[in-house]
């Protein structure tokens, strides 16, 4: 069974990049467009990892992360925060919300991949 990654992102181009990158690497990618969808998708798909954009319509990525991490059955899913603020303190905010890793836009695809691989490796140990 292939590794399933939930990518939450409202920008279509970025969704495409991640899908192309991760599927090329053999991962299964499911997508959500906002925070609410992310919660539903996490519940439904039970992904091995979530890439969570922070700036999202309706429920923000941070809030969605908090809710997921509040769930006993979903808590173990690693979440990577993807932010475009790059303001000082964004990483702390992400970490406080429960994110396991942090990457700022614009990211190099291979950097993202590196983080994903590291987290999955850590989870499977």
């Amino acid at each position, binding site marked *: 069974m292939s590794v399933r990654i939930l990518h939450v992102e409202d*920008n279509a*181009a*970025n969704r*495409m*990049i991640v899908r*192309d*990158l991760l599927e*090329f690497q053999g991962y299964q990618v499911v997508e959500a467009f906002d925070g609410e969808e992310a919660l539903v998708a996490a519940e439904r798909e039970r992904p091995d990892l979530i890439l969570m954009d922070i*700036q999202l319509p309706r429920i923000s990525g941070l809030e969605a992360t908090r809710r997921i991490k509040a769930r006993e059955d979903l808590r173990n899913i690693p979440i990577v925060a993807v932010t*475009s*603020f*790059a*303001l*000082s303190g964004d990483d702390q905010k992400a970490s406080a919300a429960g994110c396991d890793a942090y990457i*700022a*836009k*614009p*990211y*190099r*695809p*291979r950097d993202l991949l590196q983080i994903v691989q590291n987290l999955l490796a850590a989870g499977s140990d």
Partner: protein
Amino acid sequence: MAPPSPDRRGGIVRRYFLIFAALIGGSLAAGLFVELAFRFQEARLTLQSEHQRMAELAALRIENYVEDIAQTLRIAAPPRGLKDGRLSEDYLFNLRTLIRNTPAIRDAFVIGLDGHEQFRESRIAASVPNTAADHSADPFFVAARDGETYYGPVKFPNDSLEPRIRIAVPIEPFAGDVAGVLAADVNVRYIWDVVQDIHVGKSGYAYVVSNDGILIAHPDLHLVLQHKDLSDLPQITQLRDPDSGESGTGEYPGLSGARALVAYQRIPSLGWTVLVERPLMEAYGPALLSLGRIGGIFLALCVLAFAAAVRLRRRVVKPIEALRQGAVRLESGDLDARLSLKTGDEFEDLAEDFNRMAARLQEAHAGLEHKVAERTQALEQSLGEVKALSDTMQTVSASLDLQKVLQTIVVHATELSKSDGGVIYEFDEDAQVFRFRAGHLLRPEFVTELVAAPPTLLDSIIGRAAVLNEPQNIPDGAEPTAPHSNTPVLAEGYRSMLAVPMTRGGRVLGGIVLGRKVAGGYSDEEIDLLRTFANGCTIAIEHARLFYEVGRKNTALQLASQHKSQFLANMSHELRTPMNAILGFTDLMLDGIYGDLNPRLRKPIDQLQVNGQHLLRLINDVLDLSKIEAGRLELSLAEYNVDEIVEALQAAAYPLAQAKGLAFGVSSESRIGNCYGDSKRMFQVLLNITGNAIKFTRYGGVNIRVARENGDVHYAVRDTGIGIPTEELGSIFEEFGRGDPAIAKEFAGTGLGLTIAKRFVTMHGGRIWAESTFNVGSTFHIVVPRRVTAASVMDAALGAAGER
């Protein structure tokens, strides 16, 4: 002033009196004394010379008496009386006659040249036997034989108490031819008569002393008969002194023992001395009496003068003392002090002047007290006003609550002016009416009325005051002529009205209206006071309006700031998201995720990536700068190790330099150790400068030197690059200050790197500057404190703000 000490009292008068008394009395006494002394001396001399003359006179008389006898004897011895040693009858007859006629002659005898007595005739014995005694050796015989008249010494024969002397004369038939000697024993008793006749004054007398000091004549016969030897008396002793002369006067102890004035005169032929003696007291008595009289008169005069002076002093001192005491009483505050001096002279005038002065002083004092009372009252009132004003102003400045300020003012204004009611209106410019804002001592119903029907500019006193910009003082609102006497106010019972406008720069802000339920109006002082209160209101209203305005603007500013932050955040997101897509796709294409890249596409996609990266840096720099300027970028201060930063810098820059074939080196003079600051930003600055150095260097190399300088760390980044023209050195740290556009084109960069670097360095409290020679190379210096303090950060922030 302390009252004069008692011993000083009347000091001047007493002193002058004593000085005058001493001067006048002294000079008078001295003059008198001298005068008296001279007079006495004169009197004494006169007396003495009188005395002397008496003595001379007595001596002369005695001498004459004796010489008369001797003369008589000579006459009685005629030249031919003795012939051949024989006495003729004639001679004897003559002799007898002589003796008979001359009672003083007791015996007379004739002696022949042989010295034998030849004849003797005696008054006592009828017939005296011829003794024929030999006298040839006797001095009297010798002397007479030699042609001289001999006066013998005084003798007191046994048979008689009376003294005698022997007188012998030569018997000369012819001159020089002595035939014999005629001698006679003369009873000296007869000179007694002479002496007794001499009276000097009352008790003065004369006496005669023989050569050997025996008293031979004295008015008191008894003394003479005692053969009194006076040779011990000083005046007699002195006679023996050869220098004493024949005569003299002096004061000696008299015979009676008391001192006496004594004059003496010698009778040289007899060897006797006549002394005239008079008791001193008697002699000088008259003179002394006279002197005493003069002295007495003087004394009396002195006493009189003294008494007069004392009286005069009293007359002068008493009024002066009275004046002085009066002055003392005045001085001690007893203004009722008056003097009553009925001296009838200048003192009385002076006393009257004094009384007038005291009266005037009393009047002035009474006036002064009245004035003081008046002033005190005025002062108290002013004090009350000042206090009220100060309270008001304090409220105005301390409180931003306009209602509270206006209430304070209306209360103070009403009560201070003793009004029966007061109102403060604020002018409503939109409605052009005066809105009731605060009132004091008003019935609630009346307030409701005022609120319901606000006064306008045209139909009210306050409106009139505001239009004219002058306080309106209505003495009696019930008067038909009174302007705008409106019924509700009159109905409330107000008669006197005062309205003071509040204006600011020609704008009507409002006004204060006071009312009293009695007619009479307000005084100018009260109007001034109310004006002051109106000014206070004006300030308070302005104050409140300004505060409201500031608050509103502040809120707007905060909102704007929030919008800006939001905008920045949105911008960041909105720009980065598409950038992510562009760079992501480029990367994926170049990484061959979409299959092998068509070689013809390779170059364009490379360019896409390079330009995309550049655009991203630009976006990041602009955001950084915006954040710095918005004050949202703060240093996160912590301990960091400079050496670690330098190592990281080396690791980051070395590949870049190597890629361009440049030499790269870092020299650290010593281990710098720990610093305090924002290590991330410092690294960013150093990487930017080093990156620039590598970027602008085609040949040669880049060298970084790190050194400790006092409390600073000095980084120097030197390159052998293209250099910076001198005229551009000053502007390279400004935004987009990079000089030549051609160069900018060749060396990709945002143009914001140095600006941001400078901001970060400045935020650390440090300095950054460049030295450069065009086409030779540049050196960038960065000096930052090893330990950043809050103060240096604050200074830097202010400095940065000042540059804006």
